């Protein structure tokens, strides 16, 4: 009884582990790299811009700083958009 359990556990694990080896390289490669990271990075930047605006409205940041950081963040967003559209 116990031996069956152990064998089942072992074989299931092994099958699960080696299964990606039968995918071809390109397939697994495409699984790895998609644009989700970039999208998330973009939304993080948007959020930072929003927070910056709130901080400015609350008077926690000076006008020059605000303008400078904002333009820099916008530049970063545009770089991401550019690379992802390519």
């Amino acid at each position, binding site marked *: 009884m116990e031996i069956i359990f152990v064998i089942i556990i*072992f074989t299931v*694990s092994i099958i699960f582990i080696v299964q*990606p080896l039968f995918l071809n390289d390109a397939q697994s490669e495409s699984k790895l790299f998609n644009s989700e990271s970039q*999208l998330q990075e973009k939304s*993080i930047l948007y959020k930072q811009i929003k*927070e910056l605006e709130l901080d400015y*409205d609350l008077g926690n940041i000076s006008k020059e*700083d605000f303008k400078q950081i904002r333009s820099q963040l916008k530049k970063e967003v545009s770089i991401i958009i550019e690379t992802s559209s390519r």
Partner: protein
Amino acid sequence: MTPIVGSITLNLAFGFCILSTFLFLIYQKKGDSRLYHVSRNMVIVVNVLSLLATIILIRLLVVSDLNVDYVAHYTSLETPFFYKITALWAGQSGSLLFWQAVLSVYCLIVVFQNKSRHIRYMPWVFISLNCVQLFFLCLTNFITNPFKPTETDFTLLNGLGLNPLLQNVTMAIHPPTLYLGFVGFTIPFAFVIAGLLNGNSNPLLLKTIRKWTHVAWFFLSCGIILGGWWAYQELGWGGYWAWDPVENASFMPWLTGTAFIHSIMIQEKKNMLRVWNVVLITLTFALTIFGTFLTRSGVMSSVHSFTASSLGPLFLGFVIIILVVSISLLVYRLPKLKTSKRLESITSRESGFLFNNVVFVVLCFTVFWGTVFPVISEAVNGTKITVGPPFFNQVNTPIGIFLLGLTGVGPLLAWRKTSLSNMKRNLLIPLLFMIISFPILWYLEYKNYVFITLSLSVFVISAILTEFIRGIKIRKNKSGETILLSIIKMISQNRSRYGGYIVHIGIVFMFVGFTGHAFDKEKEFGLSPGQSELLGSYQFELIEIEEIERPNHLAWIATLKVSENQGKYLTHLYPEKRIYFHRSPDESRRQPHSELDIYSRLNRDIYSVFNAVDIETNIAYFKIMINPLVRWVWIGGCVLAIGALIAFNPRRIQK
């Protein structure tokens, strides 16, 4: 399923864990993505196997399989079903397996969350996590295996049973919460190490690190507060924090973890303090392991009294390995971590955060010093010295008050540089409130620390509230929404900011609760039915003593009538004296236990303990305490938990 299966499952997990670590290393060299998928699946298998082993142990506990040593030690046939499950973390080997299980759950979440995120970092994250898991798998496999068979030459009819003190709902949820917190810090640590090994870190990685730190911090805070609550409700000494080594062990990582939560924000926003953050998270993680070392090694004489075991040196060794590896990595990557950005002004938000960090680390240091001082002293000049609560209270009170002040001032400072007009506008109202509070507090005859703490509390609360109100006003003017809607939207769109402020409010409430300790009163006396006794303005009259036999204990229940100011009826209290195993013929096995009763209101708690009963003379002995403001500690704890939940935002980022 039998213990053997559990044992083999653990062996398999250990083997796969080593294998996957090597495969990841090969992948880093070769770059074949199939290799990455294979090793990642292996990580999944390791974690599922660890969980399986835990489930098997739980099953063995539930069915009371006395052939397993652990089951026989921590449960008996009479133990209620619920406490049979909680016995999983009652003993050493079980709790180590439980630690591993919690880490496995976290790891699985990491695996599935990051299927296509952080691709460059994930191999290193998995390698770091594997190394930590390897340590715990090593312990559960080879040092203290929870599936070890019972070593007796006779058949066992019943187990030893679970300590009645632990048969309590709070005690059942306190350790797992604490574990979730302790173990949780492994994840941000692994990500930080991955960032270090990669040589750079992007905003996405920082966000992941911060979120995971929030998770760990939330659970650790809840665990600590629940521990205090349990001590207050169960142990009968009328306090909630004794600066015991075991408590300090959980408090130290909390301090550095809190510092890290603050300083990681600076790194996200300003890309500063990068070296410092690595140091902090390493320290936090090392302290969680060190804490386990303290509680498990027996070097500390603690009333929590875990038996001394051989695990001490192993844990200490692991702490040293963590520190050495992380520090050498840090030194190796130092040139890449340097930034050109500098602090520009002392009155900036950035420096506020920096001060906060320094204070937290200093607090951690004093607690650390007080905790290990006895050991150092004994090693150096052979005299054993114990460091008691007075030391910690005296040292930490002024530092804590300074921190409280920072809580108020910090959020009012502007980034980079606070202009004078800005300072005036932001500080005016809170300062005004504080000044108004002075004569009131003076009139109420508060002095010294209590006076400072309470007036600072007023300052901090009003500072946070004005910050809220200003935000709402701006939002309302911009969007024209109703007040309620703009409050909700403002909080939900800036969760970490406003959740953080709510946590601050919780902390202030807790400080208010701590001040009450200065006015504690207590008295011990004996009464026979009909007699009464005075404590302060309260009168306690013993109405009757009732004897009751319940399934697993014998209890005497006292009925105390409490009245205030000469005769104004307040409440009845029903403290109990119990004897567990009262039917046991062996007198030493009988265990007395005092079940206390508390009358709790916002301004004070009346805390009653039934100490002893003299059956011949019918006299009952009580200890009564008046603890002002204690309830604020628990209210603050709840507010803190709610704030932390708001700040920790599990919502997926929309595409």
